[in-house]
């Protein structure tokens, strides 16, 4: 057991985040809880540096830490994406935290730790390291969700998330233990080799697969394990919701691809049908439930469930192209959902609204605030999946991968669901542009939000019109 410098440099982005988190804690202590802008700055810089370190690792492929960490393009790409998500969340948080009167500098170190957990998850080459990453991420999130500690909804959300999360961790851990019992190893590669040699499932294996599937299903919030997500998303501070619905979901999906798409692929025939049904039910549930919401945050929560359904289609399709498509879609989804939440957060600070995320707050904002209007329109169009946005190509790639592998029912279900989804996404645009403004339309316009909205909408259009670099990268790096 010894580590070389290659190992250390291979996990440099993670190490940078560890240092960032520790520094942020110290800075926060030094500022005596009065002002957390220095902590925010440290975190933002940390994300940038870590992101640069991640990007500079493109092209190196191998296994680090005695086979515990995958040093492949998928890891690299998602490290960079997570850093972008973390950075944007960090810079647009202060205005929101100030608005909600949350003065806890712990916010930023926790955010950093949770991104660190996500990075460990996507890089992990064995189930145990993955679980450690998962817990690092989840525990930070439990605290972040209940950070608005004077608000009973936030506390309730944190409590629910903790209970359900502990539940899921237990399931996951039992699944890992049983898998170890069956295979005799926790390395993904060993699992693949074991099932390649003997693709029959005994009762113990079935239990292991079912428990792992349950654990993942909780993390990506698919039917019937999705109930927590709506309550938690609604109760959590909005910036945390924005973060949770993008980064952790993407991380869980990447690991899902690694474990089910790759490691358990030899026994795919056993769980493909099951996953297909879950995918369809999830899409239908998310979209249908989103239709009737009057609260934008809950609407976006349900939409995020529906998107998990679309993404599952890519995993069911289960070949290289499908994983690349899922990777592209995850990146696109992270960008557009983060953008949608950022826009909604700022809308909700409109003067004269009670801050309860009702749709009414959108009325007439489109013309009063062109940047907000245009960018939110782009995010909604992308969530619907209309060209020329990234969301369109994401759906196109995923569904065409499904058709190519013969899952035509899934593709059709996905398309029908996209039609339903159009209704509630378009309502946002309609309210912004076609409803008469009621009362005061002034909203605060802090610079970080403008940066976030511009960066995200430009990126969405850019990779929507010129998808070539991203999809090539994904095809090159997908496992």
């Amino acid at each position, binding site marked *: 057991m010894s580590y070389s410098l290659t190992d250390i440099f291979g996990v440099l982005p993670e190490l940078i985040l560890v240092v960032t988190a520790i520094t942020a804690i110290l800075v926060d202590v030094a500022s005596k809880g009065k002002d957390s802008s220095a902590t925010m700055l440290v975190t933002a810089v940390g994300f940038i540096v870590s992101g640069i370190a991640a990007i500079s690792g493109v092209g190196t492929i191998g296994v680090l830490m005695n086979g515990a960490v995958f040093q492949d393009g998928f890891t690299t790409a998602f490290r960079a994406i997570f850093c972008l998500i973390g950075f944007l969340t960090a810079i647009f948080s202060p205005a929101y935290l100030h608005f909600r009167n949350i003065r806890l500098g712990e916010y930023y170190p926790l955010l950093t730790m949770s991104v660190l957990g996500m990075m460990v998850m996507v890089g992990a080459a064995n189930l145990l390291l993955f679980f450690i990453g998962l817990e690092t991420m989840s525990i930070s999130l439990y605290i972040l969700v209940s950070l608005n500690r004077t608000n009973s909804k936030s506390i309730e959300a944190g*409590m*629910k998330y903790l*209970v*359900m999360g502990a*539940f899921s961790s237990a*399931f996951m851990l039992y699944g890992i233990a049983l898998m170890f019992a069956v295979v005799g190893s926790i390395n993904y590669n060993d699992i693949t080799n074991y099932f390649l040699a003997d693709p*029959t*499932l005994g*009762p113990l294996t*079935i*239990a292991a*697969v*079912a*428990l792992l*599937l*349950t654990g993942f*299903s*909780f993390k990506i919030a698919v*039917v*019937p*394990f999705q*109930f*927590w997500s*709506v*309550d938690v998303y609604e109760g959590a501070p909005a910036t945390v919701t924005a973060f949770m619905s993008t980064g952790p979901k993407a991380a869980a999906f990447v690991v899902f691809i690694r474990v089910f798409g790759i490691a358990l692929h030899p026994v795919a*025939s*056993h*769980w493909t*049908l*099951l996953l297909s049904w879950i995918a369809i039910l999830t899409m*239908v*549930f998310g*979209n*249908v*439930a989103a*239709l*009737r919401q009057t609260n934008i945050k809950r609407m976006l929560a349900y939409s995020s469930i529906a998107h998990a359904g679309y993404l599952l289609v890519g995993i069911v399709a289960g070949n290289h192209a499908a994983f690349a498509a899922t990777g592209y879609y995850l990146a696109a989804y992270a960008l557009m959902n983060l953008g949608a939440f950022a826009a909604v957060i700022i809308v909700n600070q409109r003067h004269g609204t009670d801050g309860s995320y009702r749709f009414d707050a959108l009325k007439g904002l489109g013309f009063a605030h062109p940047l907000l209007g245009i960018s939110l329109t782009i995010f909604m169009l992308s969530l619907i999946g209309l060209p020329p946005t990234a969301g369109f190509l994401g759906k196109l790639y995923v569904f065409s991968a499904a058709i190519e592998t013969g899952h035509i029912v899934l593709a059709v279900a996905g398309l*029908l669901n996209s*039609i*339903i989804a159009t209704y509630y996404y378009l309502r946002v645009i309609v309210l912004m542009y076609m409803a008469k403004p009621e009362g005061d339309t002034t909203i605060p316009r802090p610079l970080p939000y403008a940066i976030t909205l511009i960066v995200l909408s430009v990126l969405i259009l850019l990779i929507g019109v*010129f*998808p*070539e670099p991203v*999809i*090539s990268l994904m095809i090159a790096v997908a496992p």
Partner: protein
Amino acid sequence: MRNAWLVPGIPFFSFLIVGLFIRPLSEKAAGWVATAALFVSAFFAYSIAWDYFSHFGIGHEGPALVPWAFEWLRYQDHLTATIGTLIDPISILLMVVVTTVSALVHLYSIGYMAGDDGYGRYFTFLNLFSFSMLGLVVAPNIVQMFVCWELVGVSSFLLIGYYYRKPSAVAAGKKAFIVTRFADLGFLIGILILGYFGIEAFPHIGAKIQQEMAGLSSIPIQAIDFAFINHPATAHYILTTAGTVLGLSTLAVACILIFMGCAGKSAMFPLHIWLPDAMEGPTPVSALIHAATMVVAGVYLVARLFPSFAAAGTPLDVVAFIGTFTCAFAAIIACTQDDIKRVLAFSTLSQLGYMMLALGVATAVSPLGHTASMFHLFTHAFFKALLFLAAGALIHGVHSNEIWDMGGLRKKLPVTHLTFLAATLAIAGVPPLSGFFSKDEILRAAVENHHPIVFGVALFVAGLTAFYMFRIYFISFWGDARSEKAEHAHEAPAVMLIPLIALALLAIFAGFVPMGEYLGTSHGGHHGIHWNIAIPATLAGLIGIALSAFMYTGTRERYVAVARALGGMYTVVKNKFYVDEVYLFVTKNIIFHYIARPIAWFDRHIVDGAINLYAWLTGALGRGLKPLQTGQVQTYSAWWISGAVFFIILLWMKLS
């Protein structure tokens, strides 16, 4: 040549910068920046032409290079849409023409549009239009061609409907867009057919063509690239493997469908109806549409795909027939119109007919018509742009489009008069102006490829052209002022006259360019003038001029008597053969009544019914799901346990 992308690139960036940043600040600056951009772009076009011909020499066919390209959309191997620049003699020719005319039109517009409300908007659109056309010209594959083709359609829609407060302008914009869009349907199907067979053919011949193309293109050749489609091996493959449709080979069907798109853009009969109405746009826009951009796009595409058309054979006959017919048809109508811009519009139709028929009479072994067509495109661009801009100066001075409101203007607008005369002589084919040479080439192509009827019609139309052009010339510049407005007409400002003079010089001297040498398709042709063709052609022109002078310089009674003698025929022609009315009848009484109405019923009751059912089901499902979200962790856990049990059961069942 690596910087060839700058030619369409500069107008594009200028479009963005002017539209987004400069226009809100200063309308005036917007005009100058947009104009400067086109002049810079023209400079690059010239430098590319210089580089290309000094490097590869003239007198033989130059290679087609793709010095700059990037992958845009990858569908599958060998089917990747690239964005790039194709550099070969005809694209260079078009680049030069488009940038020159567009730059001059921009300059002219600074004077013409001064004080207009949407000054900045106008220049933004003008830049977009130039960019679209240049993007189309340099397209190395049929997808970029199509995208830019549609961009041209959109920007023409914006410019024709520029005076959006005027209902007739809006209607004209819509008409242009819908008619060309309808024609593009054929284009799109044609592309799909070619693309489909291209992909099938690629594995068999791709490697060979790739080898031949090595070093010419900066990116591997794709099945939708022109270099691949136009390759004889591809045509041979499609002709031998694909079946026939209605007795035509698949390649011929694809070409004819693509020609449908060309006919729409180039306003060939019967899709010409949008062009006269497009006069509703500002006059410089008409100049740009008619001379250098939109309408020549169709001719250019046929020229671009000429090897495919020639391999299929039949499509060229169609092109020749439609071209000849439009040529004569439009010239006859032009003789009776009173709106100066409409006369020019029909003359454009007629001249486009010339270009098409020249392409139509060319063959793979004797591509003289191809050169002639490109040559005529070249010369026509200058004299037609000049005619429109001069007409714009007239309208600017007189504030009317009607030729009968003008008269006696040669003294009041001397510069406009002289430049207009130069252009009129050029289009009438009087030697040694530019139109004479290119028309001579076309007639010769018709003779040499044994198309006596085409030759006869073309010769007749040459005379007719001289007649109707001198008709408007005499009416507006000679005689006495026929209206109050004409009495007080004044010359246009210098910024408008400079482009006129520049174009007049080009219209006079462009004919001396040895086009055959540059295009390299003449096989030693175009040496001097062919007297056996030039003399009758010139005679026809002179007869037309003489007739016109006889009828329109004297008293009004002369031509009224002629019109009366022709009787009903005159009325039919004056009403443009009632083509618009026929369209109206067909769409309103037949399509709307017998096709649209049953479809509407089906749509309302069956299709909408199904959608409503779907929406109702979704809503009901939503109501049913609502109670599930109780907000209680206990319920959620219960669901969880049932889910886990369900998973195990399902996995177990799959096992046994």
